[in-house]
């Protein structure tokens, strides 16, 4: 269960950020921001083999003592970042992947909406729903 989920646009500005314990938003925003550097690094790592199928799932970007950050980038350079609480029994990699897949799918649905201008913050309720489903339930 994620603690924070963020969608970053190609130009590295956030399209969507949602954190579960709302009070920690600032912290998570900061974390996501710094993780972008790692993402960029990973993307550019495949520099030579551009034609190669780059792995969309970037894996663990950045573990801290409190939490782990996973990254995923789409072919259109839209990045998804999931912050997971370390205290959580570590979620298996597959679970993280499936979370990203779901995110990607609902992001695609959002994109399909003709009323959505790419680059706008995502306000889709369906997307919110999916994200909420993946977030840790606050207690």
């Amino acid at each position, binding site marked *: 269960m994620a603690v924070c989920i963020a969608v970053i646009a190609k130009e590295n500005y956030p399209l969507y950020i949602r954190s579960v314990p709302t009070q920690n938003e600032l912290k998570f925003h900061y974390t996501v921001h710094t993780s972008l550097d790692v993402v960029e690094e990973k993307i550019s790592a495949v520099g030579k083999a551009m034609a190669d199928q780059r792995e969309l799932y970037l894996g663990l970007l950045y573990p801290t003592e409190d939490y782990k950050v996973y990254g995923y980038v789409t072919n259109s350079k839209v990045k998804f970042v999931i912050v997971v609480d370390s205290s959580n029994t570590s979620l298996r990699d597959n679970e993280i992947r499936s979370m990203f897949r779901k995110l990607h799918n609902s992001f*695609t*649905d*959002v994109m*399909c*909406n*003709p*009323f*959505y201008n790419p680059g706008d913050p995502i*306000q*889709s*309720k*369906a997307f919110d*729903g999916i994200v909420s489903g993946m977030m840790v*339930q*606050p*207690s």
Partner: protein
Amino acid sequence: MESLTLSDVEQKYYSDLFVYCDTDNTKKVASNGRVLDLFRAAQLPSEVVLQITELCGATRLGHFGRSQFYIALKLIAIAQSGLPLRVESLNSVKDLPLPRFVVGKNEAEARHAALYQDTDSQGLYSSSGSGVIPRPPGRGHQNKKGPPSSSSVPVHEVIQPLAPTIEPQPDSTSPVVSPHQSPPTSPHSWRKHKRQPSGGNTDRQPVVSAAGAVWTQFRETQTGPVSGDGMWSSHSPPPTVQESWVSFTADTPPSSALPAMHPSSVQESTTIRTVASAAMTNEIQRQSSGYDDPWKITDEQRQYYINQFKTIQPDLNGFIPGSAAKEFFTKSKLPILELSHIWELSDFDKDGALTLDEFCAAFHLVVARKNGYDLPEKLPESLMPKLIDLDDSAEVPEPTTDVGYSGSPVEVTPNKSPSMPSLNQTWPEMNQSNEWETFSERSSSSQTLTQFDSNIAPADPDTAIVHPVPIRMTPSKIHMQEMELKRTGSDHNHPTSPLLAKPPELPEEAKLTASMKFVAANTGGDGYSSSDSFTSDQEPITRQRSQSGTSPEALKVVAPPPPPPRPHPSHSRSSSLDMNRTFAAGSATGQQQPATVAYPPAVPPRPLPTQTSGSHAGHRGEAEGVSGGGAVLTTTSPQQIPQQPNFADFSQFQAFAASEQPSSLPEVDKHSETGQVDKSSEGAGPLRTVKSDSQAEDRASATVSTAKGSSGPLAPPPKPVRRRLKSEDELRPEDEQHGPQKSNLIAAVLATQPSIPRSIGKDKKAIQASIRRNKETNTVLARLNSELQQQLKDLLEERISLEVQLEQLRPFSHL
């Protein structure tokens, strides 16, 4: 939190309440302050309230989400009715009265409660009858109730306003309802007020806004106090909705003006409400039981949507691309966010395009929104496009009654006319699933079709009689063949004919020839009778042959395609000829060659025209086209005439005549028609001889005439034999006698071959021998044919050149 099943009434009510509490306008979280106030207004002991908050999970979450809020409300209702607070009871308690909230800030809610109850009891849903978007529960009824009542519930400035619009109703109850007007207001909005699209509920709330403006307007118009619920009841039927929102006028202006009015009206309505509310309560309970799906689309609406769809996309089975839909719905002046949400709901298959069903759903949602109904969180079932017929489009859970989140549908409350119910059933017809299914059906059918074709395609060359080939053969041909076969008895003799056509396909050819022979034989016998048919068939046959004959080269071998083995000229019956002709049609290429060649190149006529022009005039006609060239050729190059297949045919014919009439006739005919091919098939010899004789066209003609003579008697018989072929051949030879050449050739060929015994029952050996001979003749004739063809071409060229010269000379003559 367990899932909550709310009745429509409840949902509506709760949704209204939620909106009321949703001061932050987030639509997600009810502000704790408001909520707590509300709970306090429920007049429950505080510990109960605490318990409720805990149960609903708000404590856990820290805020009241929509579901939590709904659960809390339900628990309040449970508590108010004296039942123990249990989470399980959330769904188990049936017919729970709506939670009642005492005055205070929450008067509105209280009123709503009353209203809802009343309205429910009154069967709001039915009020609209027309199936307009269902009004919020209770509101309508309340209106109907009429008791303007002095608001049993303390006035609540806030929400009221909307109520008034409902005309008939005694506003008393309605006012109560108004607080959460947002949903209820939708009916008003239908009226042609363009409500502010944005956040209907919030807008409506007196507190917030503007939306109310529209409503207040109504109110003003209405009677003022009572109106509150009146709005609901008055809701205009769908058509109005359509009109109203279709115009898509700017809705903001009115709203702005309205707010001011709200308070006053609200108060009025409130008072009214309070009085009525009490009365309502009972009714509400009654009402709660039955309501229609608020999101159903009436037929008129549907028709309207379909018409709109057509304006964008004439094909009802097609898609409206996202961009077009975006433009269209943007005209509704709903905020992009809401349109986006509507799109999300209605684009069921998430393909970025709207099918008819999806479009109707989207349109309907827009209409609802414009009328003030909140958008559901999930697509209501009635709006779901039946993508897959059989599937329970089950993704959307029964929307309206489902968990709290689907608040808005509830608001929309069923008032939709009872007529709606069947709409869903009609949907499937329009579904994309139908389209999809049809696609699959089509594909499958196409497969079947292809299969059929494939089945038919592999003509079985071995079949003696009609070959697989495109059966061009006319029935008569077939008949002819059969007759020939019968007549010849054994195909032994005639096997050559087929063989002629195609050495490789000897077996079939043999059969063919056999058949042809038989036919020939038969024709011989029947001859005359059948000849008629032949003649009749000749035309088509001729045509066919001519068509096939266009490919000279094929002539020889006859065979590209199956059977119609070109019986070499030697075949008496010309079964081969006949076959050729008959099959030629089929194979088009092969057999026809001989015969057709004659036609197109008009080779056959060549020899004939000169001689038989007169007599053949008749047939010429038919062969004219074909043999036109031939005729010309004949005129121009007599020498070539002999080369004409016709020529050969005739020779064969003569031979036939010598050997056996029937067979010869056919052959002759055939030859005459097929001309070259036959000749070639028969044997280079005869043809060659013909060629050599080409110079002596006269001779050819003579032969032709002789052939004619001989064929004369034979003609009739042969005709029947070869039906098709013969008819052509006969006609030609007889009429035009394609040529003495042909006959010569034929005769020659025939001579070369053992007279193809008509008797079918020859010895095997003889048959085989004849087969061999025929084969040889075939090859020879084939070669001859090709040569003749070549010659023909040359001759034609010569002719052309001569003509040109002539023309050149002529002018001079004029000089």
